[in-house]
């Protein structure tokens, strides 16, 4: 079976310089265009120039002003007119954040191919990560040692999750299943032998997560559905239908008694579900392209989403609408993964242009940009105690930054 992915190269006239060259799809102001690689570099250079000019000054809000409300007009008047930036207007009096110094503190090397997914253990120290070559590795992030390694029978393990107890990991991908492996420190035991197949979908598994206990797993799949499974018996407890295309990501509400989760898919919709009834409670459709990642705000009243349209957006559940958009003209590559810091003030987003942008959630401005990965950032999670965040990339490594 072919184990490689090949990028289909399209030749044609570039939308900017009109020369016949190999083209790449980029998103400028929510519009999809095809630029040749030279024009891609030019657009990114213009953005970099802007940033260097403003270096040293308090960064002004770089939102395009055409969307700003007129003075004296309430942004609550009608849902249709005042789409965006409401949080930024309320938060104008909030102190701006200072400069951030975040560096890569640990580099976890060992995967033989693209890292696709990772998760932290509740002990704030261990990390599980999965990659395209089928390997699932459990690391100790303090020492960078590998504690466990398992080879899945399929490639492209797109989802992995750590159990809340720290005693098992769940993973899945092109095999359409979600398997749970109990972690054992006994050197004589083969981890793969104790594997338990829990979920069965009709298409690839894109995301999985344990609920508050080790006993239930929530999965999202390319067949357009999400499902809740009982780990012990492998039985389907509830299924969630409603997405019109592949579901790419999901996140559970943070509260202990929470019974909802949010999912994002290729149909550009983010949907909030009630786990007990299987009903969709709310849905949001403002993105222009596939939603790659969704993450709840720490209070549970809002969630952020990262999409291929190069923007991240914040949706408030009680106001039932989008309340902030995090984008810049110089960012033209999709966001693959987002996560909040502990207080919810910072939003970390990993992009396909190999960088990680840190956004001020309230002000809507970019606080910091982190380089270091040599290929696209595919997954990003903040540790449970908020001291660091880990990013996994197609360059085969994971980086823990603090």
């Amino acid at each position, binding site marked *: 079976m072919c184990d490689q992915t090949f990028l289909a190269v399209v030749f044609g006239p570039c939308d900017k310089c009109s020369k016949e060259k190999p083209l790449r799809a980029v998103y400028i102001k929510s519009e999809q265009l095809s630029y040749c690689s030279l024009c891609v570099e030019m657009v990114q250079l213009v953005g970099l120039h802007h940033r260097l000019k403003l270096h040293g000054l308090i960064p002004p809000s770089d939102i395009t002003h055409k969307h700003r409300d007129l003075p004296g007009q309430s942004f609550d008047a009608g849902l249709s007119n005042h789409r965006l930036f409401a949080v930024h207007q309320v938060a104008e009096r909030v102190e701006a*954040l200072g400069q951030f110094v975040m560096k890569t503190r640990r580099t976890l090397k060992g995967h033989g191919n693209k890292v696709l997914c990772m998760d932290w253990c509740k002990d704030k120290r261990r990390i599980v990560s999965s990659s395209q070559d089928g390997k699932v590795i459990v690391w100790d992030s*303090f020492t960078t040692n590998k504690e466990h390694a398992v080879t899945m029978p399929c490639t492209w393990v797109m989802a992995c999750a750590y159990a809340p107890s720290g005693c098992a990991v769940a993973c899945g991908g092109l095999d359409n299943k979600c398997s749970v492996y109990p972690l054992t420190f006994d050197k004589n035991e083969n981890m793969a032998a104790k594997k338990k197949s829990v979920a069965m979908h009709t298409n690839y598994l894109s995301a999985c997560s344990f609920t508050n206990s080790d006993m239930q797993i929530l999965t999202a799949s390319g067949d357009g559905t999400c499902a809740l499974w009982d780990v012990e018996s492998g039985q389907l407890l509830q299924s969630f239908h409603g997405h019109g295309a592949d579901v790419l990501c999901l996140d559970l509400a943070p509260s202990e008694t929470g019974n909802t989760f949010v999912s994002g898919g290729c149909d550009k919709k983010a949907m909030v579900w009630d786990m007990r009834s299987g009903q969709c409670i*709310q849905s949001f459709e403002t993105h222009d392209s596939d939603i790659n990642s969704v993450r709840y705000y720490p209070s549970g009243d809002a969630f952020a989403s990262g999409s291929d349209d190069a923007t991240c957006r914040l949706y408030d559940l009680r106001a039932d609408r989008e*309340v902030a958009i995090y984008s810049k003209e110089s960012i033209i590559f999709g966001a693959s993964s987002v996560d909040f810091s*502990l207080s919810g003030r*910072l939003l970390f987003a990993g992009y396909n242009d190999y960088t990680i942008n840190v956004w001020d959630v309230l002000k809507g401005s970019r606080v910091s940009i982190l380089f270091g990965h040599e290929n696209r950032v595919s997954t990003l999670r903040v540790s449970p105690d908020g001291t660091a965040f880990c990013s996994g990339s197609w360059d085969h490594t994971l980086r823990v930054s603090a």
Partner: protein
Amino acid sequence: MSGKTASTTNNIAQARRTVQQLRTEASIERIKVSKASADLMLYCEEHAKKDPLLMGIPASENPFKDKKTCILL
């Protein structure tokens, strides 16, 4: 999803489901954005002190930051 050759009854049933779903979604209680944003700001302010990535914790307490090496005299 039903293909282009789906029967008319199938389409009607699906449309009914969509309308029902939209009705439920339209009837939920919404609060004003100003209140929602104010709550988000309040949450950020309350938890800002405890956020290590925001405030920065001293290197001695951060397990990831390199500690100064000890010198044996």
